[in-house]
């Protein structure tokens, strides 16, 4: 199988910008998502550096708090809404999901193209926060009444959410229909790549929950600019309702990010370890399915100290803790897939291996935060901050980077293995631990989040300094990684047809990169086919 000589199609035609702008090819749309989300990532990453510099001193160092709040807003909103979600469900799903299921394109290619341009519109709108006077200073959560009475332009936040939400819903509809109706002949539900399953789950969550967030921020907009009183308690509004609606979407959004990241990791572990997925059905139906079922009933853990009735705080403590059951099944499958594997270590596998430890750190620190009484002390401290940076930010970013390395030959026809990539990995790995461990420690001691000044807590300064150094080491790692990608995309070593000897459809049946229509001949599969069938015959 691996001896077949497939011609690698690089630079088949001359570059034409209009072909990219008006493209309806899912692969090009995927690349557009990648470029847009990486751009958002770079800007939001620079904000993170500025935030860390400001926090290296207990008093005001760079700017006054109003500017700092705009940075924080942008960092949070852009990282989650414009980098992680579009990177994982926009880029990765667009490029690889049709390839993995043997489809020529998605169900509605033109709607797909429309989604990506909505996404670019949202990024532009978000970036305008820095240009307009009084940029939004409302954090990514935008809780009223502050988001209503502030002089900051809440509208930019609301319209950004609208555009991204609309884009995501269109994407979700498109991909769900693609997976349901356009799988290659013979491909059953139990033969799907785990990345396909996790992406399907993420899109189901997006489809159901995004409209709630869109509705909530729309009412926020009415309250601020049209003088309505949906969230004003004086006029019969409910000040707590917004928080409930916000987290009703935004907790599932964590799984919209986490699940595709896990899916990428599974595919990499299987390909690099030449191994079957451990307990595939338990992982899919128990793990992924379980998360989809439970994730809509746990949002109150974001509101443990928000004056909700006691019975709901206790009830959702139990549901939140129970999330550990499906997550535990997924984790067991991850670990089990290593068992008796035959692992080849390359840059993709390095990032993947790191994710095993990030998911432990981030996931296990979530257990105390699931407990209402423990969270009374920990909520809104940097413990929470470190927790979600490990599980949501760093774990998912590492998984996405692993995926980019893994699929780099597929996208560009060239390899991105090299010293620079390894330096990038190790700098990231060291930096992440330096940046966020100190925040766990001072979080337990009571360091509040979102504090540009912490003159009341001078004892925490050394910890913040270490975290700041860590952030800069991450920045070095990110720079190495990005330079490595750009260099390799143009001048990297040409890739063999199936560099990892993977059994997954996108590697066995398509060229690097795949041409229009993806498959030179339509793949037809039998019931014994599996993307994870590596058993020695």
């Amino acid at each position: 199988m691996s001896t077949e000589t497939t011609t690698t199609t690089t630079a088949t035609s001359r570059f034409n910008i209009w072909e990219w702008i008006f493209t309806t090819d899912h692969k090009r749309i995927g690349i557009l998502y990648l470029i847009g989300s990486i751009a958002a990532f770079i800007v939001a990453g620079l904000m993170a550096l500025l935030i860390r510099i400001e926090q290296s001193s207990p008093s005001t160092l760079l700017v006054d708090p109003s500017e700092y709040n705009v940075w924080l807003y942008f960092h949070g909103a852009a990282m989650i809404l414009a980098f992680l979600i579009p990177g994982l469900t926009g880029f990765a799903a667009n490029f690889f999901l049709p390839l993995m299921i043997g489809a020529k394109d998605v169900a509605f290619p033109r709607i797909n193209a429309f989604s990506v341009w909505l996404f670019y519109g949202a990024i532009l709108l978000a970036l305008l926060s820095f240009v307009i006077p009084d940029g939004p200073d409302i954090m990514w959560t935008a809780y009223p009444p502050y988001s209503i009475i502030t002089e900051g332009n809440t509208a930019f936040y609301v319209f950004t959410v609208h555009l991204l939400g609309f884009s995501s819903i269109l994407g979700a509809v498109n991909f769900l229909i693609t997976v349901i109706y356009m799988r290659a002949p013979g491909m059953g539900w139990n033969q799907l790549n785990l990345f396909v399953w996790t992406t399907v789950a993420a899109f189901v969550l997006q489809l159901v929950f995004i409209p709630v967030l869109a509705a909530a921020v729309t009412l926020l907009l009415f309250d601020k600019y049209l003088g309505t009183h949906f969230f004003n308690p004086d006029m019969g509004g409910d000040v707590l309702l917004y928080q409930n609606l916000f987290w009703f979407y935004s907790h599932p959004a964590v799984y919209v990010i986490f699940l595709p990241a896990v899916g990428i990791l599974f595919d990499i572990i299987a390909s690099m370890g030449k191994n079957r997925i451990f307990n595939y059905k338990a992982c899919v139906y128990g793990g992924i399915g379980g998360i989809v079922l439970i994730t809509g009933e746990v949002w109150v853990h974001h509101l443990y100290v928000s004056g909700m009735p006691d019975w709901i705080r206790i009830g959702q403590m139990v549901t939140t803790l129970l999330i550990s059951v499906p997550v535990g099944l997924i984790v067991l499958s991850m670990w089990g897939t290593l068992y008796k594997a035959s692992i080849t270590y390359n840059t993709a596998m390095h990032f993947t291996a790191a994710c095993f430890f990030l998911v432990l750190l981030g996931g296990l620190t979530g257990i105390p935060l699931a407990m209402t009484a423990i969270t009374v002390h920990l909520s809104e401290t940097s413990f929470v901050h470190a927790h979600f940076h490990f599980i949501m930010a760093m774990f998912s970013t590492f998984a996405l980077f692993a995926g980019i390395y893994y699929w780099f030959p597929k996208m560009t026809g060239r390899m991105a293995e090299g010293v620079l990539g390894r330096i990038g990995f190790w700098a990231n790995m060291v930096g992440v631990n330096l940046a966020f461990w100190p925040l766990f420690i001072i979080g337990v001691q009571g360091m509040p989040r979102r504090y540009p000044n912490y003159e009341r807590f001078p004892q925490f300064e050394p910890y913040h300094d270490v975290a700041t150094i860590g952030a800069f080491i991450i920045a070095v790692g990110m720079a190495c990684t990005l330079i490595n990608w750009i260099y390799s995309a143009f001048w990297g070593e040409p890739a063999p047809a199936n560099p990892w000897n993977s059994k997954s459809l996108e590697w066995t049946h398509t060229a690097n990169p795949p041409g229009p229509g993806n498959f030179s001949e339509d793949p037809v599969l039998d019931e014994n086919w599996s993307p994870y069938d590596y058993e020695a015959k």
Partner: protein
Amino acid sequence: MGSVRTPFRRLVQGFALAVLLGAATAQAAYYKKPVSDIDENIFRVDENKALGVKMDGAVRLRDETGTSLKLADFRGKPLILVLSYYTCDGSCSLINQELRDLLAEVDGQQLGADFRILTVSFDAHDDPETTGAFAHHVKAATGLGPGWTFATFEDPEDIPRLTDRFGYRFFWSPPDRAFFHPGVFLFFSPEGRLVRVLYAGSVEAGDVDLALLDARQGQFRPSEVLEFAVSLCYSYNFKEGRYTYNIPLFVAVGSLGLGVAAFSASALVFRRRRNREGTR
């Protein structure tokens, strides 16, 4: 508004209203405007200050039979406190009568079994005799069971102590030979904290029902889940002193169907298109 016993009707009503009207704004109405040149706002209870304040359980009262009671005796169940006086022929008795008429429509919760009412006179001149006459007047020809107590303060000095505590202002107007006072129903939790203030004249039976549910502070029986769920459809309006529809909740629940509808429509379109291509 109907009673909570017909929650579905109210849900439907609420939905229709939310969709059609949006937030209706009604001017705060008072039961009786005593004199036009008095600032109405002095007859409002400042909820920012008064909410959550606990009544002093040690205050002693005397009922129509002359029996001595303590305010603490009224803990353990939600309580509606009505401040009134018994020798008037004006608004005070009407406030109590209004409450009586509203209760006739409240059938989700039973007076006595689920909550209590306490009418206390802030007029130091009232005695068990006027109390009895007044109680008889209010309760006459109703089937209201026990659970509604009429009383006076044993110690007149407790009157300002209690009214000040809740920001309740009243005064005697010699020319009118009457007290001017707010027409409010004060709702207390079972532990005796002020939870809601409803203004006579602008409330309906549904408001009383909702305020009583609120007063229970989330303690409801499993059989009342539906009532509780319905109560979420309303939120208290401080400006108007009554409950209004919680419109964002309707919008959010409605929006839950949006994605599913978009998906179903697209799936139909896709299948039709594929069938057309297949037959071609």
